[in-house]
């Protein structure tokens, strides 16, 4: 085999790499020169990269295209949100002396905790970062996610998942769940009290991106007896507005 079967890919990456060294833009001729490629070859490969959005051309010449930003963002939206959330969660935890956490949706039917800060007390919740929650009906963040769906979609979710009873207080009857989600939509926040584990309470408010889509759920968790859920809604909402 005389020609490597990945030649065009290898050469295009070489062009991208060269382009990254010219923040003000670079001409096709210059790119061909620094990569030691025939100008006609460079030109053809650049056209393919441009079509795919990986390279852009303007008056100053070629630069790396915004498709790469889109790809990077798509792979990392959670990391970006988690990073900006950490100082906000630390303040929330210090103010209420309870654990504060940020969760995001993983697909349409799971929630994962991506950041957490703990209060100073000994009795509290364990670290949930990285933990995936499938029992949406027994989680404050999960209820917020379900509340985004209309009743028909919730009914389909119930049929598919068959919500488990985790404690005597878990809401598993469709009627009770519909009522609860209506309440969540109405008040704009969600809570649980002993529904996932006896004695454990949580309260969560939505983090909304521009346009109103649900970007994440920010909340407090702690012992039921201690956690004044209604009083914690206002600080959670203020925190949520600072995240996006």
């Amino acid at each position, binding site marked *: 085999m005389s020609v*490597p079967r990945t030649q065009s890919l290898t050469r295009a990456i070489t062009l991208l790499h060269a382009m990254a060294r010219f923040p003000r833009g670079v001409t096709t001729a210059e790119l061909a020169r620094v990569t030691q490629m025939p100008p006609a070859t460079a030109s053809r490969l650049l056209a393919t990269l441009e079509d795919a959005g990986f390279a852009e051309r303007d008056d100053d010449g070629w630069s790396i295209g915004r498709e*790469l*930003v889109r790809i990077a963002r798509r*792979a*990392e939206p959670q990391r*970006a949100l988690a990073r900006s959330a950490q100082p906000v969660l630390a303040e929330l935890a210090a103010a209420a002396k309870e654990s504060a956490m940020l969760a995001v949706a993983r697909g349409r039917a799971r929630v994962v905790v991506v950041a957490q800060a703990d209060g100073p007390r000994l009795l509290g919740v364990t670290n949930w970062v990285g933990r995936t929650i499938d029992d949406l009906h027994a989680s404050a963040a999960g209820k917020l996610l379900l509340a985004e769906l209309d009743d028909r979609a919730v009914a389909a979710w119930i049929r598919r998942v068959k919500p488990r009873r985790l404690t005597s207080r878990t809401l598993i009857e469709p009627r009770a769940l519909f009522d609860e989600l209506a309440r969540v939509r109405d008040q704009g926040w969600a809570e649980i009290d002993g529904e996932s584990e006896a004695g454990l309470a949580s309260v969560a408010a939505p983090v909304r991106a*521009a346009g109103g889509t649900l970007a994440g759920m920010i909340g407090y968790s702690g012992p039921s007896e201690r956690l004044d859920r209604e009083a914690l809604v206002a600080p959670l909402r203020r925190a949520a507005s600072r995240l996006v």
Partner: protein
Amino acid sequence: MEGDGGSSLRRGLRALDVLAEVSETDAGLGVVDLARRLGVDKSQASRTLRVLADHGLADRDPATRAYRLGPRVFAYAARVSERRLLRTAPAVLERLVDELGERAHLSVLDGSSVLTLLSHSPPHAVQAAGWAGRTVPVYCTAAGRALLADHDAVALHALLDGVDLPARGPDTVAFIEELEARIREAAERGFAIADGELEPGLAAVAAPVRRFDGRIVAALNVSGPSFRFGPRLAEAGAEVARCAAELSGALADHQVAIDAT
């Protein structure tokens, strides 16, 4: 074109698109999965991933042999952000000057200093001096506090331990703890205020500009003489914060239009 007629390039670009769906908490994507997603055979998928991995565009987990996006994708995306920042910021600075009548700047963190990249000025006789290319200390400026908005106590100590914090105006911070408190205040407010910290009689407001991954890459700030600008700091701060959010949107590739007129 090329020995392979460009087919490996098209396959490679599609592979990057598929890898972007692998989030960092997922296990990664195996060769077989990728081959199925791209509709190619396993050896083609394997060759494609190997080239991407050789150039840092894909990352192979040696334990599971699964792939995810590589670090160079993020490095490239960062270059796009830098370029877009420098192209978009001048129009925003111009608008801030029009609206607030004081000098507006775009600055970045340079060690423990703030380096002014761009500066735009109004036609006042008394104004903050021309700053482009100048550095000022990070601890006593509004821009500094905007740039340090995500620094916690540990990061602040790492940056500033051993750095002198001389009093340059009547209200300069003397301790890192004090600086941390002002950074938190600024974060809460949405913008930083400094009045008489860098120099008596000089006031400024600033807000951070974030790129696609949420990292702070620059600060937008407006400064002017306290006698004129001091009473308007709250109004100016809100406007600077709004413009910084708009710039961040442009860097994040949100659908936010920058009004260049």
